[in-house]
């Protein structure tokens, strides 16, 4: 764009800012409005004239959702399911990603594609048999069973994303360690994993956010307070108790706080990992 005139360039710059500001408002306005709603008294939400800026602020909605429902239990269940999912992915997925990244062998490409194709299977097609199977072996309505189901569709993503980070880790140090007498396993644990530390964290966070947010499997595979996660619990509360808007908004804000914090911390590395595969392939 070296020949474009200064005026044209200024015009494009203004247009760029206008587009970005509009899109940013579009993206965060629902969030801001939910936050404002969660801080309003119910009487100020259900009014004749809309209050854009709340005239008075209350934290009653937060107290209500936290104390008057099983919300802490729901959050705790979600936490356990998410942590279990991440651990399962870390143990099994790291090994697979390492194998795909460091070795070339017959069948590797087909296997990698196979891991990806699994993502195409409709959740509904899997949910029904999973329901029957888990009922048969007593994993229905258990946090471990749900984590197992989550691992099934998050593992392929985990493997592909982590493979990208492993590919980026230099191979020379690993070779040096091998020459010094390290086994392949030793080199992987002591050299490669520390090198790909950021990638491991970002990939885990990506899986954690997905597991924390998941709704459909949880709705089908949990039936009681003992294992129900927060998305299902919140949705059922809306249906059963005609949850007031303020309380619902407070519940929403509480449950997305962990997501926002994790996203803020590893956003850069995570974004890099998500895009690397798609752009290369």
């Amino acid at each position, binding site marked *: 764009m*070296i020949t474009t005139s200064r005026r044209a360039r200024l015009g494009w710059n203004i247009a760029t800012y206008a587009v970005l500001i509009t899109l940013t408002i579009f*993206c965060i306005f629902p969030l801001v409005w939910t936050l404002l709603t969660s801080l309003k008294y119910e009487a100020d939400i259900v009014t004749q004239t809309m209050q854009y800026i709340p005239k008075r602020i209350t934290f009653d909605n937060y107290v209500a959702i936290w104390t008057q429902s099983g919300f802490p239990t729901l959050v705790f269940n979600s936490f356990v399911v998410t942590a279990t999912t991440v651990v399962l992915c870390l143990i099994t997925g790291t090994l697979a990603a390492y194998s795909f990244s460091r070795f070339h062998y017959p069948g590797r490409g087909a296997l990698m594609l196979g891991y990806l194709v699994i993502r*195409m299977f409709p959740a509904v*097609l899997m949910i*029904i048999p999973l329901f029957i199977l888990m009922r048969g072996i007593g994993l229905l309505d258990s946090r471990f069973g749900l984590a197992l*189901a989550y691992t099934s569709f998050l593992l392929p993503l985990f493997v592909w994303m982590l493979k990208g980070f492993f590919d980026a880790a230099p191979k020379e140090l690993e070779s040096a360690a091998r020459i010094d007498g390290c086994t392949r396993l*030793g080199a992987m644990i002591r050299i490669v994993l520390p090198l790909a530390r950021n990638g491991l964290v970002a990939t885990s966070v990506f899986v954690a956010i997905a597991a924390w947010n998941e709704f459909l499997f949880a709705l089908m595979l949990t039936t009681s307070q003992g294992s129900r996660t927060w*998305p299902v619990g919140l949705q059922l509360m809306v249906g059963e108790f005609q949850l007031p808007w303020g309380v619902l908004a407070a519940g929403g804000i509480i449950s*997305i706080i962990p997501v926002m914090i994790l996203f803020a911390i590893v956003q850069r590395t995570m974004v890099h990992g998500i895009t690397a595969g798609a752009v290369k392939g």
Partner: protein
Amino acid sequence: MAERMSALAQNPPSVWRRLDPAAALGRLSETRYWMYLLLVPSAILILAVVLYPTVYGFQLSFRQMRLNRPDLGTGFVGFKHYIAMWHDKVFWLSLRNTAVWVTFAVIIEFGLGLVAALALNRNLPGTKIMGVLILLPFFLPNVVAGHMWALLLDPRLGVINDILVRVGILDTYKAWFADPSTALGAAILVEAWHGFPFFALLLLAGLKGVPDDLYKAASVDGAGPIRQLRLITLPMLRSVIAAAVILRVIGLVNSPDLLLILTGGGPGQSTQVLSLYAFQKAYKDFNFGYAGALSVVMFVLLMLFAWAYVRVSKVNQD
């Protein structure tokens, strides 16, 4: 642990060599099957939790299975469910709705994503933070996204209604999700909000890979920004666009979450899509056989689309 392992590797006492699991694994890693062994844990998980249930699901679609009516048994019924589907009006309606839902959502999301990516790629000062905020909706849970928008579009308290009335576009508040003519459109708006950051993310990464020289050469030749977009940017992004569209279509066809939360398929069946219909058949009616058949049809159609799409985008390349 680490020190011990290296010590063992250099000077292994014969007893430990047999008993220490870490050393045993270390030795195992030197065999030529190691790369396959590494895949075993994840392969077992995937076989048990994905492949086996999917095959079971296919099989289920040819059988009678109603959890709430065990007296009907689980016998083989051949193509009964598929024939019933052919005569099921709701199936055809949800097939049509799925097509509308996916087509419009993908077009809007791609459009917004491309605009966002092009704008962000100019790297103007102060736009970095906007890039982060624009990505945020993609990471928010469906349940919260759904209820946020339900509040924004509420027929009595919705702020969007209020703004539209103030600006003069609407005369009175509108019940977006209760009116069959606007429900699907409103749901697509919510989905676009939720999904366009995904396109922005991938397209932005793709844009970073387009060499600057191409643009310089084009502008020397007198091509304006619009022609540069059409002749350089879009062709260079072809594979990224293909990948993004495929992934998004798969996601949209397979996941009924947002519609389940926003409308539950209503009013009437005006927002009923295949995945949601199948889920409700299983979750509400416990008619697992029919639900299985619905999801099999959905899966086959999706595969056909993916195959055709990949072919078409490859043909164009030559």
